[in-house]
Every structure is written in structure tokens, then in C-alpha cells.
């Protein structure tokens, strides 16, 4: 099978203006992936499916991944301008400056594509949303592979990615009235609590918030 780099080159040759980059996987599995811009995603997916060399006729797995925005601290070293009366042999002074930079978060959808006809794979496609709040729209690949139908609904349900072009985009695992997206990293589970005799500190603290004192354990019933 072609390497992700070769596939990228062919896609770029075919679709001018498409954004495709190879995301290297540093782990031992070495399953590299292709990060595809949302604008051409459906066209690229159709190309990958119909291309006679690749024939990626099935999408095995659709995964949502949440990458929250994070702050990284970079240390920038700047040479200090040498003072006039300084000893020229002395090494020039260096000023270290710490710059905080906010890396914007995004939601990512990962598609694992395989070819049943040619028995090869996986080719991994990644689509990323612009951010995690307002612009969470991505094109749906369900028209290309029906296998994505339920899995994209699941990503919508658990991550909140809105797929345009999906025939039936509803919540699938959570109930319809549910408000949040529980697989996001910043999801806080609701503070509902039913007293149970687990002796953990965390659980007990939670219990005390809800009950001033835990309810008395029901009395042992007499054996009939």
C-alpha cells in the first residue's frame, strides 16, 4: 500500500488548494495519518473510496478526540546587548523570557479506512474543527461510507461535533434532552448522589454535601 506521504501527494495533485498534511505517529505502531481540511473532506473521501489503487471501500472506525485549549510556556532566550565597558572576552549576557502562549483547542474526528477488496489498510483520516465552542461543524462522511452513520451520531452525542450532510443527526447513546457532551475533557459530572456505603473519602465528602448525616442503614430484617 502507498505510504501516507504518497497518498497526500496524489490528493494534492488531484485537488488543487486542498489542505492535507501527514501527522506522524511517534509511537511504535507507526500508524501515520492524514490531516484533511474540512473544505475538501467529502471530495477527498470519495476519491479515496473510488481510486482504483486504494479502493478504501469501508470505514472501520470513527473516533472523536477532544483536544482542549492549553497554555504552553515557552522560554525565549535573547542575547543581551553587550555593555560598552564590558570585557570583550566575557560571554554575552542572555536574557530569558517566558512567554505564555495559548494553543487553541479543537475537536478531532479520526476515520480508520480499510479496503475490503484489496485487503489493505488502514489509511487514517483526521478532521479538525476550528475550535471547541462555536465552530464545531465538519462535513459528514456518511454519504461516502454508511458505516459512519451511527458512529458519527455517537461523536455528535459525546463530543458535540455537528456533521453537515448527515441524514439523521440525533443523540444516540444519551437521551435527547441531555445537554452536555460527556466525553469532552472538561465535562463535569452532575452532582447527584445517592448514599451508598462506599467508604472512600471522596465519596464521603460528596455524601456530606448532600446529607448532613448519612441515613441510618435499614435495620437487619429478621430471617423468616
Amino acid at each position, binding site marked *: 500500500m502507498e505510504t501516507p506521504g504518497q497518498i497526500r501527494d496524489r490528493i494534492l495533485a488531484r485537488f488543487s488548494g486542498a489542505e492535507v498534511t501527514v501527522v506522524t505517529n511517534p509511537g511504535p505502531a507507526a500508524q501515520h495519518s492524514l490531516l484533511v481540511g474540512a473544505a475538501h473532506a467529502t471530495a477527498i473521501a470519495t476519491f479515496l473510496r473510488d481510486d482504483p489503487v486504494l479502493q478504501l471501500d469501508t470505514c472501520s472506525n470513527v473516533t472523536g478526540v477532544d483536544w482542549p485549549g492549553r497554555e504552553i510556556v515557552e522560554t525565549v532566550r535573547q542575547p543581551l546587548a553587550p555593555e560598552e565597558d564590558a570585557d570583550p572576552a566575557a560571554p554575552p549576557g542572555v536574557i530569558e523570557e517566558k512567554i505564555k502562549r495559548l494553543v487553541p483547542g479543537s475537536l478531532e474526528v479520526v476515520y480508520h479506512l480499510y479496503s475490503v477488496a484489496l485487503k489493505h489498510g488502514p489509511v487514517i483520516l483526521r478532521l479538525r474543527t476550528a475550535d471547541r465552542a462555536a465552530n464545531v461543524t465538519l462535513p459528514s462522511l456518511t454519504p461516502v461510507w454508511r458505516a459512519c452513520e451511527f458512529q458519527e451520531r455517537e461523536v455528535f452525542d459525546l463530543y458535540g461535533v455537528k456533521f453537515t450532510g448527515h441524514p439523521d443527526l440525533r443523540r444516540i447513546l444519551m437521551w435527547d434532552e441531555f445537554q452536555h457532551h460527556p466525553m469532552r475533557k472538561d465535562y463535569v459530572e452532575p452532582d447527584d448522589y445517592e448514599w*451508598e*456505603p*462506599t*467508604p*472512600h*473519602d471522596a465519596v464521603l465528602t460528596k455524601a456530606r454535601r448532600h446529607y448532613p448525616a448519612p441515613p441510618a*442503614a*435499614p435495620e*437487619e*430484617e429478621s*430471617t423468616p
Partner: protein
Amino acid sequence: MLGSGLLQGLAVTAKNLAGSFHDPARYVTTEYPEQRTKLPENYRNFPFLVHDDPADPNGTLRCVACQICEKECPPQCIYIVMERDEKGKALRRPKVFDLDISVCISCQICVEVCPFDAIKMDQEYEIATRNRFGGLLLHREDLSKSNAYYHQIHPTEAAGVDAALAEQKAKQAAAKAAKAAPAPKAAATTATPATAATAQDSAISPAPAAPPPASAPDTPANPAPANPPPDA
């Protein structure tokens, strides 16, 4: 011929019906609780703690309250507090060892990660209780069972553990002896606190009579298991 498949199927059911009267392979029902099949040796249900001396079930627990099992337990059903003396010095044994078996998933990971062979899997399965809250939360006293009991339920595994522990002990003794030979004074000083600690142990824990394990050794063993387990 239409219907021959049906007749063939009926012949199979007839064979099974007749066979159920004389062929043990076709009549597999065990009439529990009058009859019990023998549990395989590897069978696991819920964990228990091993103690070495039945006279002092809480003082001689192998558990040193290192909390590795508490950290590794996938459903977080173990809760351990280490016992400390008045000065706050750790006594390397649990003051509280609670195990919520309504949460436990019997995965045996606590047994695998325990470096002291202190926690093992029990085979007691008749543990239904009428008190949902207290009855399924086992404390140190309920969990503490003797090494002899461990030998009874997992004979092969227990023999291996005992051998490993004996070897470890011999190694430690040898190391101690090697250390003690050049400096006998140091050895003497290290020995005193140890004996003091054991004395303190027995003083602190009054050894409450632990309830005998429900699956006591005198439980009538199954006279003739209808289905000998594959391991037998």
C-alpha cells in the same frame, strides 16, 4: 422429502429425552443446593486477607497497608488506613481495610499487584445478605482469613506462595546474618525495636474473635460431583 428434516430433528430430541435417564452427558442438571459441584482451584470470587496466626487474626495480617491495591483497583472498592502509634509513626499494618463487595468486580488485579501476597481471592459465593448497606461492606475482621484456609481453597497457588515467602525470609535472614557478622552491636540494637513492636502489636490489637469463615472447612464436601470440572 418434505418433512424429513423435521422427523430427523424429532429423532434427536427423542434421543436426548431417552438419554437424559441414563447418560450423564445428556442430563446435566445439578440439584443445588443439595448437590454441589466441586469448584475449580482457580475459581475466584471476592478478595480476602491472609493472616499467619489464627490466634491473632488481625495482628498477623500479611497486609502492610501499602495501598497499592487501593490505587490499582479498577472500580475503587478498597479503602485502607494505615495504623499509626501515638507519635504518628507508621506501623505497617491496616487500621481500616474496607472492601465493598457490591462494587468489587472480582478482577483479581489486587492479588496480582500485591507484593506481599497478603490479599487473595476467596471462593465463598453464598454471600447474599438482607442488609444492602452494611452487609456487603466487609471490614478487616470479616476479610481476615487464615493461611490454612488459603491452602484449602487454592492448594497449588498457596504452596507456591509459601515457598516464595520462605525463600524470601531465608534470604533476608542470610543478609541480616552477613550484616550482623562484622557489627554484632548494630544487629542487637536493630533487634530490640522489632521485638518491642511485636509486643506493642499484641497489646494494641486485642484480637477480637473473628467470625469463622462462612465457608468453613467443615462444610460438607460434595459427595460425588456430577460434572467433574475439567481440572479434576
